[in-house]
């Protein structure tokens, strides 16, 4: 039984999407040693920058997220991925803060990535796109903030891969980060997580429509491989308890199993749906590159093997948040960050939130998460001179 029955939808032209675009002409030295550029940064903003330019919050998105934090997605029309958090009077209060979120380098929502044309050839970059790192993504964001003339961010916040960027920001540009909130993250990608990513990448590469990465030039798209990658990854974002609560062993619109490979169980339909909707909005090569960037992330390795060195002398205020049922980025990995920050005598808060929503809890309405964030940000805003809420 094929997972996908409909042909892939064509993307709307990028220029029609909401938000802003910045063309950076000055090349950027990437970790792989290549001077990359010119390149485009697609970003979205919410709220207003104050006169002191002191109220900016950089939101860092996760692996398959994008800059549409609180806008309807231009392809799927679904609400922004953190819409529950952002808005007037929200936890990320747009009356009070100026929010910036940029699509990451290597992404497929407007920032230069493997699907964009290589100016040298006019063809999509595909696998000739340089292998990028989390630090490269952060360097690109720094270019954007320099352009926006924001020297000091009030806060850098993000979940999952976004948390990796937050930690990288705190380590690379400590003077520019007043407060840092890495949620459901880790200071390095674990062997198990690299293994899951490898499964996803192999699924994409095993799809005949991947065509060694040249599918765009050939008018094809590895939708099956990408869907399988998404399905496998999606399981890791949930928890056994949540899957059981939502689906159990119930049967899908039938009274008995069919002794076939149709989706007998709703959990199968759910995963197929996750896979098939994902391929409409995401580029397979972007998936390869961004998962690779996460795999390479190891903040301690950049600092002589000591995570505490990454935060030496930091004056940023940290709020580390993990979730009890997150087995992709389990609490002990957050605790390692906390210990490193303690060793650096940093100002750190650490909250583990009880939920059965797994890793994806950071995207969901978790009252305790909201309360923690609100309290932490209010406290920081007072110290920053942004006044009381």
């Amino acid at each position, binding site marked *: 039984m094929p997972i996908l029955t409909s042909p892939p939808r064509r993307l709307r032209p990028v220029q029609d999407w909401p938000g802003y675009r910045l063309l950076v002409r000055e090349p950027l030295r990437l970790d792989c040693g290549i001077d990359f550029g010119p390149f485009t940064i697609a970003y979205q903003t919410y709220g207003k920058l104050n006169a002191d330019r002191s109220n900016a919050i950089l939101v860092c998105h996760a692996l398959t997220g994008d800059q549409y934090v609180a806008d309807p997605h231009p392809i799927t029309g679904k609400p922004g991925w953190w819409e529950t958090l952002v808005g007037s009077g929200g936890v990320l209060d747009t009356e009070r803060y100026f929010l910036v979120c940029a699509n990451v380098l290597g992404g497929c929502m407007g920032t230069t990535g493997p699907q964009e044309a290589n100016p040298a050839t006019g063809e999509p970059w595909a696998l000739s796109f340089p292998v990028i790192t989390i630090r490269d993504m952060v360097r690109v964001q720094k270019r954007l903030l320099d352009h926006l003339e924001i020297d000091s961010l009030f806060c850098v916040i993000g979940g999952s891969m976004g948390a990796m960027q937050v930690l990288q920001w705190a380590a690379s540009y400590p003077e520019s980060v007043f407060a840092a909130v890495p949620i459901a993250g880790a200071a390095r990608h674990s062997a198990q997580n690299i293994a899951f990513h490898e499964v996803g990448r192999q699924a994409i590469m095993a799809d005949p429509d991947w065509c060694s990465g040249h599918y765009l030039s050939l008018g094809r798209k590895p939708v099956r491989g990408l869907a399988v990658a998404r399905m496998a990854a999606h399981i890791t974002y949930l928890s056994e308890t949540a899957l059981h609560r939502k689906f159990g062993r119930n049967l899908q619109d039938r009274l008995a199993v069919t002794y076939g490979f149709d989706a007998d169980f709703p959990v199968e339909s759910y995963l197929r749906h996750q896979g098939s909707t994902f391929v409409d909005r995401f580029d397979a090569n972007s998936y390869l590159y961004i998962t690779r960037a996460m795999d390479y992330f190891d903040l301690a390795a950049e600092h002589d093997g000591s995570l*505490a060195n990454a935060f030496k002398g930091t004056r940023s*205020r940290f*709020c*580390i948040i993990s979730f009890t049922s997150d087995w992709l980025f389990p609490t002990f990995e957050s*605790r390692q960050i*906390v*210990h*490193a920050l*303690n*060793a*650096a*005598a940093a*100002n*750190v*808060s*650490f*909250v*583990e*939130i*009880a939920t059965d929503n797994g890793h994806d809890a950071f995207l969901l309405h978790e009252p*305790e998460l909201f*309360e*923690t964030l*609100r*309290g*932490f940000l*209010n*406290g*920081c805003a*007072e110290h920053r001179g942004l006044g009381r809420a």
Partner: protein
Amino acid sequence: MAASTQTAALCLEATAPRTKAAAAEELRQDLRLIAEMIEPRSRVLDIGCGDGALLAYLAQHKNVDGRGIEISQSGVNACVGHGLSVIQGDADRDLDAYPTAAFDVVVLSQTLQATRQPRRVLQALVRIGRRAIVSFPNFGFWRIRLGLLLTGRMPLTHCLAYPWYETPNIHLCTIRDFAALCDEIGVRIERSVTLDRLGRPYSLDPRGSLANLLAEQGIFVLCGDTAETTGLGQGS
């Protein structure tokens, strides 16, 4: 480990609940005495900080740079939700990461007796703090002695309110035991305050038998001799 900070709310709970709303005016008696011992603008780590009453009080009245460690999730969340810098953790597990002399004062209030390794914890306290303030219930208190003598049962007092089979207090000691341990591991007792049953403070010699008999709890200001000899401690 056992819920080390459950005990933090034990003493005088009936008269002064440790809630943030009441923090400023109705700080628990032993916490108020501890707060009085802390210099303005110092760097303070409160281990077993509960819902942050002491930290909130110190931030408000003494402008301290305060941090907390708390084992209960609800306590941590309440603290962080109120803008305090608190991590979830406990004294046995989370002190090793801190560098030497990271804080001016480290507070361990009504928690020592619930740690797994009180000796190690004490050493850690005077390492990471230039001073440590430790308070705990005195098992040598005359009512406990008398109760055990007369009834032959494990003591149940308002300071030690759990029955033996579910108490988090796994390492109870007397004031003299504590003083002896301090001597043994080279921890200097700079100051001691003993509290009677009504929470009234007295200055009694912690090595004398009077304090050990009359005090229901004790508060001690400690510093490590090693810190002094390496020049890390600053005498007050």
